[in-house]
């Protein structure tokens, strides 16, 4: 909320910002915050305050940048922030960062059933696995399908979610509550459950949808595109509520005075939307877009359950399911890992775009 330039945050936190002035943190961080380069770099910078037995008082000395003046008292922390961060860093480091490293490692090794059971040593393959992967026509086809499918999911989810959020602001309490509850129900439905229910709804023999649409016994999961379309409908159904509720909450959080002033100034509805609401909602829209990209790119359960593990002859595979099949069904762990790395890199690229957007908006991290 505060855009007031806080003393410590105004300059971009380059390593050379003001090394000697902030002693506390990194030095004392070492016991708690493992595996952080922070500790190493910080060690040489401070004038040996690390050994002081009264950390809090030292850190609280007034007049220092980042600690004194009108800073919040809690901010004079010394080692405290690292203590608070320690559990998070340990868990994320151990179960997220380290597995990512391992994923990269395995993708460069020969790693199949023989290596897993310890029968043969894992041998270094260099980019061999990637060469195999990129030489496989199916991989490119699955990659393309994943990107198009995820893109279609994101666009549809955002479109439906935003439209219904606007609709929510235009109706009275009863229809609003009805729509909100229905959406929460869809959101709450577990992915496996939703997948089977949608299969039943679109079942060629027993499903009501074909009857309502008069499609006879048309099978939705048989054709490649209709199977993808069916999964897309399910994905949109269970993920639009997040967008709708978030955007609706965002519209509601716009201060009344702003809208009032705009309408007093004679702005039209469209003008209010374009010039007042849209800019204020932009951060929210960026957040929901990014979350949708992440979620939809990683869809696994729906594809796996609804198309029976990737569709007839793998026609409905997406990268996730493809990697799973390679790794666990055919024990080609290295190839599965290489696919995982490709996914990671794509999402990393998306993240960097997101970061640039945040930075361009001048938002403080």
């Amino acid at each position, binding site marked *: 909320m*505060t855009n007031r330039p806080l003393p410590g945050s105004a300059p971009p*936190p380059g390593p050379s910002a003001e090394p000697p002035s902030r002693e506390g*943190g990194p030095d004392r961080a070492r016991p708690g915050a493992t595996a952080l380069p922070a500790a190493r770099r910080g060690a040489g910078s401070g004038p040996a305050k690390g050994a002081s037995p009264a950390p809090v008082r030292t850190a609280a000395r007034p007049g220092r940048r980042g600690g004194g003046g009108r800073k919040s008292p809690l901010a004079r922390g010394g080692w405290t922030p690292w203590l*608070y961060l320690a559990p998070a860093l340990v868990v994320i480091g151990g179960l*997220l960062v380290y597995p990512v490293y391992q994923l990269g490692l395995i993708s460069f090794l020969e790693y199949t059933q023989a290596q897993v059971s310890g029968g043969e040593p894992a041998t270094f393959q260099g980019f061999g696995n990637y060469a195999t992967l990129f030489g496989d026509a199916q991989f490119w086809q699955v990659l393309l399908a994943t990107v198009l499918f995820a893109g279609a999911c994101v666009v549809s989810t955002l479109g439906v979610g935003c439209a219904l959020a606007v609709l929510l602001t235009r109706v009275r309490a009863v*229809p609003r509550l009805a729509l909100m509850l229905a959406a929460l129900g869809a959101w709450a439905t577990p992915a496996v459950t939703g997948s089977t229910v949608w299969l039943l709804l679109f079942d060629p023999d*027993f499903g009501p949808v074909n009857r309502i649409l008069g499609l006879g016994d048309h099978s939705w999961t048989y054709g490649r595109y209709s199977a993808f379309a069916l999964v897309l409908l399910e994905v949109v159904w269970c993920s639009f509520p997040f967008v709708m509720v978030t955007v609706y909450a965002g519209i509601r959080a716009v201060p009344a005075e702003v809208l009032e002033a705009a309408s007093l100034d004679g702005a039209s509805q469209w003008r209010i939307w374009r010039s007042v609401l849209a800019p204020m909602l932009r951060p929210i829209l960026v957040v929901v877009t990014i979350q949708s990209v992440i979620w939809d790119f990683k869809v696994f359960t729906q594809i796996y359950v609804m198309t029976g593990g990737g569709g007839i002859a793998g026609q409905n595979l997406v990268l996730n399911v493809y990697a799973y099949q390679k790794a666990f069904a055919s024990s080609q762990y290295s190839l599965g890992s290489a696919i995982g790395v490709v996914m990671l890199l794509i999402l990393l690229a*998306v993240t960097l775009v997101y970061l640039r957007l945040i930075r361009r908006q001048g938002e403080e991290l």
Partner: protein
Amino acid sequence: MKTQGFVRDFARRSVQRPWRLAAEASALLIAAVVAFPLYWMALSAFKPAGEIESTEPRPWTLDPTLDSFRRVFGQQEFGRYFLNSLIVAVTVVAVSALIAFLAATAVTRFRFRFRTTLLIMFLIAQMVPVEALTIPLFFQMRDFGQLNTLGALILPHIAFSLPFAIWMLRGFVKAVPEALEEAAYIDGASRTRFLWQILFPLVFPGLVATSVFSFISAWNDFLFAKSFIISDTSQSTLPMALLVFYKPDDPDWGGVMAASTVMTIPVLIFFVLVQRRLVSGLGGAVKD
């Protein structure tokens, strides 16, 4: 609330009466469409077997029966699976909420070196495709003897929900005025006391909103249960129990729908409980 009132006025004044009625009618219609799969799920769970497999599906049933539910609960260990799912989800929600609260406080209320770097790292960590990590996690869990235990499901989900939870809670912690903090210290509160007795209750709506996401990710988990619980099925969770009834060639639709209904109810209860806080929570999270 003033904002709310104004948005309502805004709606009332801006939309002509027939248009508003059309909007309300379409809202109700859309609500019905969105709720229809859930209705059909519950309906099919109560239909007798012959009626589900009828090629003329009816949107009601004349003789509801509990047969499907009996079959589901009669299946060995279904109760066990249910309990396992609850243990996993509740542990993940509680532990990640606590850890995320501490971490979010650290990155918002303190200025320290590498703070921004850490924030960016949390953001990047959010993007990591969890499913891609199944392979290394499988070996990691094997090496730590966690395969076939609930730990193999709990630990990764805590790690995966943390970055998003921290990122989201940040907005809530930021919104607590610093003056309040100063006042607390002037009144002689210790930092720990401020953290747990003042900040924690104030941030609680945010914790509720974040817990929705960690609850869903843990409760929905399908891939890890499928990959990490391989031999000791008593450690499995609900999605696996559901798939006992779902055989792609010849699904027992009654069983699938009854199991689905049982599996959805706890989440629905959870959502109804947090509904109000969720909306205000998301509003608070995205405002900053």
